């Protein structure tokens, strides 16, 4: 094959590659998620036919959107498939490595960042829990534990998620496995301490309650001194509410061009690298209101996690991009030495084919927030910013603990155990009433219907 034909083939392949790039369409959809909402974004995604190598990223995104919408089985199906793909990608691919080193990084199958690999279990656990399957949720948290063990490296919190540990603790508590719950909360605390992040009130209360309940007096005193508060164990006729709130949408990656000097060719080569723009995320909290009120606190800042994951891979990506750029530079030089036109074509082909891998699980929330309060089992609890009242624990649970799941992207709120269906509106009977009384009854009925509508929306 002549050099010019090779250049043309490369150029056409590069253009085809760009056209068929589903990850670009996914990134576009992610950019509009906060405004369009999960339902419209999901409809947009369902029109995309992702390539095999982008499928895990696609499924992670459809899975989390379905979770926001309360489609538990659909979410589970997508996330389980994505999890399977990411797991099978742990073996190194010979062909993908070759393609990535000669063309660009997007030719590798998306296998997720360390955060993705743990967070997929967290999202699945939430889905299992909200569909009423506590044992299924427990399975996911055990798997998350193994994944975090495999990711753990000395002096690094990469791939260690406090949110996964906290949710494990809640699930163990729901199973009345207090020792395991305390271990999970301790690990969440350790991860956040290592990162020098503020400990949310919910985790403080969890640690205090569990150390007091289990009789670890010394540890209880240490935590109590550190947090400046006491345990808030529910008394007789009281229960506890835990809120898991997903706020905002995490940033998508973008790309930037860097100039790198390479000694082997004694020249400066240009490489394209993925990066995140600076984050201007402003967290919005959700407040649980019972006898006391508590604003949700961040247990996982995914804006930060995403940037840490990319930073950890930066050197590796830059080295691969430099090797690739030097190889392409040599091919262009060779083509130019034979024929100017071939050289031009080859140059265009190498530039067009160079793409940064900007794929990510970019429909995740920007932060995972939690809150924990106790309340009498008869007392309704409010989610203040959503103007939503949840029925007292005694109306839907035999357990003294309920978990509420909400996102900033929808008005829907879910719970474990499942919330009772809204009370049907009282239909006024007009046959036995006088004409004078009718307007009052109609007015009452209107108020009741409006209140019911509000409950339905929640």
């Amino acid at each position, binding site marked *: 094959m002549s050099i010019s034909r090779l250049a043309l083939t490369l150029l056409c392949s590069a253009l085809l590659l760009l056209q068929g790039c589903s990850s670009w369409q996914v990134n576009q959809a992610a950019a509009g998620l906060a405004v369009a909402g999960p339902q419209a974004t999901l409809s947009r995604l369902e029109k995309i036919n992702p390539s095999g190598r982008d499928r895990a990223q696609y499924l992670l995104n459809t899975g989390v959107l379905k979770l926001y919408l309360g489609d538990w089985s659909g979410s589970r199906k997508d996330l389980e498939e994505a999890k399977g793909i990411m797991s*099978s990608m*742990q*073996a*190194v*691919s*010979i*062909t993908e490595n070759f393609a990535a080193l000669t063309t660009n990084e997007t030719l590798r199958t998306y296998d997720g960042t360390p955060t993705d690999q743990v967070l997929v279990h967290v999202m699945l656990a939430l889905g299992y829990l909200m569909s009423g399957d506590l*044992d*299924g949720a*427990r*399975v996911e948290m*055990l*798997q998350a534990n*193994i994944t975090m*063990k*495999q990711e753990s490296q000395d002096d690094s919190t990469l791939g260690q998620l406090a949110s996964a540990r906290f949710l494990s603790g809640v699930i163990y508590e729901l199973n009345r496995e207090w020792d395991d719950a305390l271990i999970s909360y301790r690990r969440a605390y350790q991860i956040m301490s290592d990162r020098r992040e503020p400990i949310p009130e919910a985790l403080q209360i969890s640690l205090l309650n569990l150390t007091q309940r289990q009789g670890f007096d010394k540890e209880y005193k240490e935590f109590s001194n550190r947090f400046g508060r006491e345990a808030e164990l529910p008394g007789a006729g009281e229960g506890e509410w835990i809120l898991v709130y997903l706020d905002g949408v995490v940033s998508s990656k973008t790309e930037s061009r860097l100039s790198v000097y390479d000694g082997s060719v004694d020249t400066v080569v240009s490489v394209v690298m993925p990066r995140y723009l600076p984050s201007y995320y402003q967290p919005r909290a959700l407040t649980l209101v019972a006898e006391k009120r508590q604003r949700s606190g961040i247990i996982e800042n995914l804006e930060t996690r995403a940037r840490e994951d990319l930073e950890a891979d930066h050197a590796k990506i830059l080295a691969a991009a430099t090797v690739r750029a030097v190889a392409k530079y040599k091919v262009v030089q060779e083509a130019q030495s034979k024929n100017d036109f071939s050289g031009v074509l080859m140059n265009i082909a190498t530039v067009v084919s160079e793409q940064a891998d900007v794929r990510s699980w970019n429909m995740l929330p920007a932060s995972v927030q939690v809150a924990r309060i106790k309340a009498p089992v008869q007392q309704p609890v409010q989610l203040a910013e959503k103007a939503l009242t949840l029925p007292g624990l005694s109306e839907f649970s035999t357990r003294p603990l309920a978990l509420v799941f909400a996102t900033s992207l929808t008005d829907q709120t879910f719970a474990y155990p499942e919330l009772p269906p809204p009370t049907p509106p009282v239909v006024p009977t007009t046959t036995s009433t006088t004409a004078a009384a009718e307007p009052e009854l109609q007015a009452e009925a209107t108020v009741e219907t409006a209140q019911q509508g509000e409950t339905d929306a929640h």
Partner: protein
Amino acid sequence: MKHWILVFSVVFLSACATSVERVSADSTIDLSGAWNDTDSRLVAEEMIADVLSRPWIGDFSGRTGKRPAVIVGTVRNLSHEHINVQTFVADMERALVNSGRVDFVASRDDRGEIRDERIDQDLNASEGTRNAAGQELGADFMLKGQINTIIDAEGKEQVRYYQVDLTLISMADNRKVWLGQKKIKKYVKNAKLRY
């Protein structure tokens, strides 16, 4: 040269094609190292063989003069995998019923469906064929249990340890009359390279 390319292409394409081979339902095929149909069947058969060989059956029959009626309660999955406990429970039910040594009481869900049918019979079936309510067989013992795992993983290697614990409890007085345990250990080595 062209012939070699053709031969290579045929071999390459045939390697990519899906193939299906029928195998015996009893055959053991381990693909991922996860809990599979063979584990479910073997554990169920071995544990039921054990429970049926213990003295509680003789004691009960000697005391009451009848075969014990058994019901399978909850078998909880506390493992690292999403195990379909229903197939495991079905395997145990089959082994128990087919032994002919115990009577078997339908599960809570099954009973509900049968009761609905009985109510329907009350309204619609002829007098001679109607089955009356209140004649159900009460279980004497309940079989409960759980599946636990311990996974030790390092790099591409894993040791998967499964432990199935079953308990047979007397409904009359909450006595545990049999405790069964079955362990399975698997060493799984995942591939380091793929095509």
